[in-house]
């Protein structure tokens, strides 16, 4: 089914999302925002996978299955990240990455 | 005509027509909310051996809600100094818009349906979750301790009961093999799912009451402890939209329950199909609404800790068990 939107548009969207996510993940101080940025990157992957699964050279359902797994894993990762963040916050009262420096020599 | 419209290429014309139709629905819904509230108050009065509204609009108080709405419209708009202004303004919209959006997917009769989405059930569940966000935003933006607590409670409660709600309908999906709401209705020609999936129905009913934030699960706004919960700082029409969202959800949830468990517009017996589907639908729908009101009058409010424990420790395992029971029975039927 052709919706008129070319596959490359989806891929470009995914790429842009990914880059925004990467930029956020690498530059932001607030850990919550970093975690959100990572989610953004993972969602970019999902867009890619679904696009390929529909418009790829050889379309197949595998991509969508992959997406499901990617989502599940992203959720698990986010939960663990948040849990660790909470525990960190309770000890340190900060969520800023650049303040996590007790191990610098 | 509608068929042609739907199969024609989408464009501005379609948009316009759909817009008009949707506005009609909106008016209907607003009408429902107006008289739903009145009905609720009347029924409550009846059950509590009092009259209920009976001054404005004749003996039945028919214009009571209208008057209420007008009053709200004329109230001064107050945004507290310490509130987060943009979020404070945004919150009612976030709460309301999804409540209306979910209506798009619900089939009222075999003809009267706006969007026939393949994954209608999923659509409903997904969109309805966004409302929580509006409530939390409202609670946060108010910068008020009661509001914040109410918002947090709303979030905790809604996400806790979302799980059993979602799990309970799995049995229906198993039996139907589709997420399309029309398919689900048609699959009930030989028996409503309330009969085939009684456990699912009970879980669904309880969870939906919790999702609607109605008594006995109205903790997010429990007026005796949290004053008014997340919308304590809201007034006038902003407040009205939270209320509106709540009642539109009542409408939507009742409609969804009808579709999922009571066979939608289908008559209970095929001999009765001379009566139009719309009538059947509204009958069933009214029963559900009545039951929900009935709940409100009958049950006292839950304690917060009991509420959460009930959701996780009772409803979720029961819903899961139901899913596997259904799958197992289905497999056994296939074998023999």
């Amino acid at each position, binding site marked *: 089914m052709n919706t008129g939107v070319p596959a490359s548009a989806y891929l470009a969207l995914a790429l842009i999302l990914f880059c925004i996510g990467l930029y956020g993940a690498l530059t932001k101080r607030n850990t919550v925002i970093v975690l959100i940025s*990572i989610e953004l*990157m993972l969602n970019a992957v999902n867009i*890619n996978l679904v696009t*390929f699964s529909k418009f790829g050279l050889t*379309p197949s359902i*595998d991509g969508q299955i992959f997406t499901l797994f990617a989502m599940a894993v992203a959720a698990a990762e986010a939960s*663990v990240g948040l849990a660790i963040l909470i525990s960190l916050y309770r000890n340190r009262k900060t969520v800023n990455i650049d303040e996590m420096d007790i*191990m610098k020599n | 005509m509608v068929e042609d419209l739907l199969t024609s290429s989408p464009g501005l014309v379609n948009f316009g027509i759909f817009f008009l139709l949707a506005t009609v629905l909106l008016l209907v819904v607003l009408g429902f909310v107006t008289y739903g509230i009145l009905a609720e108050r009347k029924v409550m009065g009846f059950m509590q051996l009092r009259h209920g509204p009976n001054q404005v609009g004749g003996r039945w108080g028919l214009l009571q809600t209208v008057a209420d709405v007008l009053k709200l419209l004329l109230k001064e708009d107050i945004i507290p100094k310490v509130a987060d202004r943009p979020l404070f303004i945004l919150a009612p919209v976030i709460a309301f818009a999804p409540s209306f959006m979910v209506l798009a997917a619900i089939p009222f009769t075999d003809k009267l349906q706006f969007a026939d989405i393949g994954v209608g059930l999923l659509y409903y569940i997904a969109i309805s979750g966004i409302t929580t966000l509006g409530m939390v935003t409202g609670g946060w933006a108010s910068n008020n301790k009661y509001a914040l607590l109410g918002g947090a409670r709303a979030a905790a409660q809604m996400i806790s009961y979302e799980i059993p709600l979602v799990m309970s309908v799995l049995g229906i999906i198993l039996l139907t093999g589709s997420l399309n709401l029309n398919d689900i209705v048609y699959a009930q020609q030989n028996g409503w799912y309330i009969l085939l999936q009684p456990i699912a129905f009970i879980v669904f009913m309880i969870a939906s009451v919790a999702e609607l934030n109605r008594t006995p699960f109205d903790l997010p706004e429990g007026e005796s402890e949290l004053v008014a919960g997340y919308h304590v700082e809201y007034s006038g029409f902003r407040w009205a939209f939270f209320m509106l969202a709540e009642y539109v959800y009542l409408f939507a949830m009742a409609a969804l329950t009808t579709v999922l468990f009571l066979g939608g517009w289908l008559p209970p017996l095929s001999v009765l199909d001379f009566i139009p589907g719309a009538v059947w639908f509204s009958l069933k729908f009214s029963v559900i609404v009545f039951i929900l009101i009935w709940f409100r009058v009958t049950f006292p409010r839950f304690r917060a800790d009991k509420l959460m424990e009930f959701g996780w420790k009772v409803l979720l395992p029961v819903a899961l068990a139901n899913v596997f029971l259904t799958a197992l029975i289905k497999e056994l039927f296939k074998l023999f």
Partner: protein
Amino acid sequence: MELNDLLAYNWGVMMPEFIILGTIALLVLLDLFLSKEFDRKLFGWIAIAALISAGISVLGMLDTPVTSILDDTYRLDSFAKAFKMILLAGSVFVMLLAMNYNPKDGFSEYRGEFFYLFLAALLGGMIMSSSGDLITLFVGLELLSIPSYILAGMRRNSLSSNESAMKYVINGGISTAITLFGLSYVYGLAGSTNLLTIAKTLSTNVDSQHTYLLGIAFFMIFVGISFKLAAAPFHMWAPDVYQGAPTPVTAFLSVVSKAAGFIILVRIMFTIFLLTASDGPGSMPLLLKLQDYIAFLAAATMIIGNVIALRQRNIKRLFAYSSIAHAGYILVAFTSLNYLTFDAIWFYLVAYLFMNMGAFAVIQLMSETTGSEEIKDFAGFYKKAPVLAAAFGILLLSLAGFPGTAGFIGKVNIFMSAFLDKDNPHYVLASIMIATTVVSYVYYFGILTQMFFRPAAESKSIKIPAGIIATVGIAVAASILFGIMPNIALDFLHSNFGGFVDFLE
């Protein structure tokens, strides 16, 4: 799919995984329902028993031909068997360490959790080593990663543990996303997630535009995986995480997790990119074409690891950089891409397993008794525990790659494979490797200096738990044995895994 299909699968090949999975479930329940006072060290024995029986079941399947079940998503080939054994062996050591880990601020309340979380991570590694599909590979990777994050942050009340876990999660999340992005392109161009199908499809790839995309995918995957290896460019997490995590976890990260990283690296790179034509059918494979870039990263890894290690004062940080350096060495073997590559990687991982585990056992004991992880607190260790100090010395020499130890044979093996290439021997890379090895002498001998030359602040002898003795004993014995008679391991490899020729069958 019917019951018959289900039973037709040879489920026996998944036996090791099932054993581990069952043990995890058992331990979770036991941990929940046993009273708080119950000593969770018993779990360690249960886990060790499970690991050994899983190991035996792997050994029992050595003669099994390549079997793939579940629609080719799970395959048992020589590669899977060979590397599963490394994972299992490393895990036994980690268990021994964890059972004897008694830091000053207490570990017993987390000990129960440690065992099953760790086994879950191990399960992830095992699934990765025998996955035949991108999805299983990815799920295995994450099953390994997510428990690792938790393990790193296990000591909830320790700030450094929290910080290390946070940094680990963030870096891990980013790298996962990058890997996945690369994988999504691979999937898009091949149209399948099955590794062998991908290999087949891509080997007939004609479009140069696609090659370009594949090149991008290659780098993204490599960069993402370099996180697991703690190799450049994604090594920054290692020092902080190694330092902050509980010592058994650090040992796990530096050995088992790293081995798993190499497993996924080899699985993905060799299946996907080794056959991928870079320029139409029959042309040079993409992997060979990009060899120089891998070599560059390997060199960077070795240099960074060894040079920054010189400045460290904390022993676990030092070992973090040392482990970065070792990842670089193994990457040299990976770069060389010839029939000795598997050999070299496998043997080095085996050697590294023993020497590093033994070293961490000593570090754990030391930091427990002194309450500090500074290198200078090793001063006079020789006086406190002469035999242990000597053993640690041998392990350090092995890490430094002195002849007569397994580390040396490992390095020789890597050199062999680096020099074997007919057209393009990696002389520069090997020279960097050996030069950085010499640099590594400085910090390894720095520890020796502290232990043997410097006087102790106080010299009361240390009580050494039996588990540590066993770990260090086995580690030293194996390091020397594989150093003097490496063919015990190499012959085992050659005769049972037959050169991994079934890798792509």
